[in-house]
């Protein structure tokens, strides 16, 4: 892609050259660009170029009512939209001083964990595809579709549910959906040995991914790495456990860690997290029928709802890292300011620009996918 003011420039004879990696490139995740300076096939410097997916969310959310933004927030992150809905709803509840019913909290946790399973299955496919292995992509996407069917049954939509609203959830679970979810989880778990044969125990993949994009623990801490990428460096930090929200302090789950900090460790952490999410979902499935009560608390008229003035920072563990919503209210019918800390905003720009130099060109896509960088939430 040439910029609009392109003029051919005569370079002096040099061994370095510039390569535009994206936005229209099959190796890039989403609509995102990296400008690489290469010598041979070794990256000398790397510069991220975002904004292709910029929609100005933070601005247009200021223009709409509190309840209208429920439709807008899931669109910030496409592969993992539920944490966005949940965090926004929780931030508004914290501002408004609402206490949501127990049953709604359990249903929200169920949605969050199911969304995490989806995102991780998608991740397996994406990471394998950067190594030229497309069978994994086919399997991961197809298994993910079974969970999308459950989502569709609960909420009416496959991707953007708009199900979690301030005050609770929109409607109760349909009859028998927990049994069907349980069957889907059994199936996904039974598929893992197949994934192991194809991907996780595959010597080619292990050789290809080991030592690629290695983060040391000090680097991870000082560069603001969060989520599974931080846990792959040996730090057992998880917002669900250390800053618990909803009913996560009542659940029993482990925080898997790896010590290597490379692309392979990040993938292994996500494999274990998938199992932990299934474990959490099983606990929720066992508990949810015993938790009765309403699914929404009483709200004022949502079209004329003036949320009390104040500011709040709500955090969630999304499948990609730490998600933060800073919401400021001036006491009006619309938010005064909403700042979204995209979970992968740090990974896609700051970390990637520092991990890239020194790696080889064919590993750039792999580093980006293994960090699970998600451009829409960087650009917002």
């Amino acid at each position, binding site marked *: 892609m040439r910029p609009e003011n392109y003029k051919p420039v005569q370079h002096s004879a040099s061994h370095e050259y510039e390569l535009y990696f994206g936005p229209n490139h099959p190796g890039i995740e989403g609509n995102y660009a990296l400008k690489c300076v290469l010598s041979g096939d070794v990256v000398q410097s790397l510069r991220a170029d975002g904004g292709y997916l910029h929609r100005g969310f933070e601005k247009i959310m200021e*223009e709409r009512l509190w309840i209208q933004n429920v439709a807008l927030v899931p669109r910030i992150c496409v592969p993992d939209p539920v944490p966005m809905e949940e965090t926004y709803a929780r931030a508004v509840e914290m501002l408004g001083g609402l206490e949501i019913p127990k049953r709604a909290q359990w249903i929200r946790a169920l949605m969050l964990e199911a969304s995490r399973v989806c995102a991780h299955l998608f991740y397996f496919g994406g990471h394998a595809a950067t190594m030229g292995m497309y069978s994994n992509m086919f399997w991961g996407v197809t298994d993910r579709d079974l969970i999308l069917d459950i989502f569709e049954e609960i909420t009416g939509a496959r991707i953007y549910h708009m199900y979690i609203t301030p005050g609770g959830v929109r409607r109760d679970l349909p009859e028998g959906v927990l049994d069907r979810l349980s069957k889907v989880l059994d199936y996904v778990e039974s598929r893992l040995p197949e994934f192991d044969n194809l991907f996780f125990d595959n010597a080619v993949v292990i050789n290809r991914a080991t030592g690629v994009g290695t983060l040391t623990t000090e680097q991870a801490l*000082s560069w603001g790495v969060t989520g599974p990428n931080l846990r792959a460096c040996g730090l057992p930090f998880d917002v669900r456990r250390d800053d618990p929200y909803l009913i996560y302090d009542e659940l029993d789950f482990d925080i898997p860690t790896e010590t290597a900090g490379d692309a392979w460790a990040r993938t292994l952490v996500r494999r274990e997290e998938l199992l932990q999410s299934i474990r959490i979902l099983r606990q929720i499935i066992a508990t949810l029928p015993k938790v009765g009560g309403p699914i929404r608390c009483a709200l004022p008229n949502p079209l004329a709802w003036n949320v009390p003035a104040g500011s709040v*920072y709500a955090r969630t563990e999304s499948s990609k890292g730490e998600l933060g919503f800073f919401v*400021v209210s001036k006491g009006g019918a619309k938010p005064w300011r909403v700042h979204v800390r995209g979970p992968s905003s740090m990974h896609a720009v700051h970390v990637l620009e520092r991990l890239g130099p020194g790696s080889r060109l064919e590993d750039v896509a792999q580093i980006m996918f293994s960090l699970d960088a998600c451009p829409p939430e960087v650009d917002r």
Partner: protein
Amino acid sequence: MNRELESLDAVFREMPDLKVEHTGPRRTRIQVEADALPTLLELLKGRAGYLHLSAISCVDWPDTEEFELVYHLWSYQVSNLISAHTRIPYDPGRYVSVYDLHAPAVYFERDIHEMFGVWFEGCPDQEPFILTEWQGPPPMRKSFDTVAYVNDTFEWREYQPEWANDPSGGKG
């Protein structure tokens, strides 16, 4: 764990002008003067273990012609989130970068510079990232009216109710 909590109190003793407020479980709000904020961040990082800069948010307050900068810091050791609020005036709209303390700050400061037009002294990278092809004013300022801009720049499609009945547009 108690050792770190005591050191947090020591930080607060050292800076008596802070307005500290516990707003919820694991949430602390600090109101701090603009010239004291870098010192506060340094003390929090060095003495109380607030290593993780979660985000820097900027809020526009046109009534008082001020930007409010909010630094969200998380401590892995004591599991507490501090939101340090400070205000800087529109004019000159400059502030110091905290890049030397927290490397992730460069991303957020670049973003705030792009969206609000605040200049951060000492920030190594304030080139446009998202709005490289944007000619207008910083769009997140309250004075920028996005609806008026859209109406000026773009045209709208006529609403054609018959499309609801015949989605193919009469082609079959």
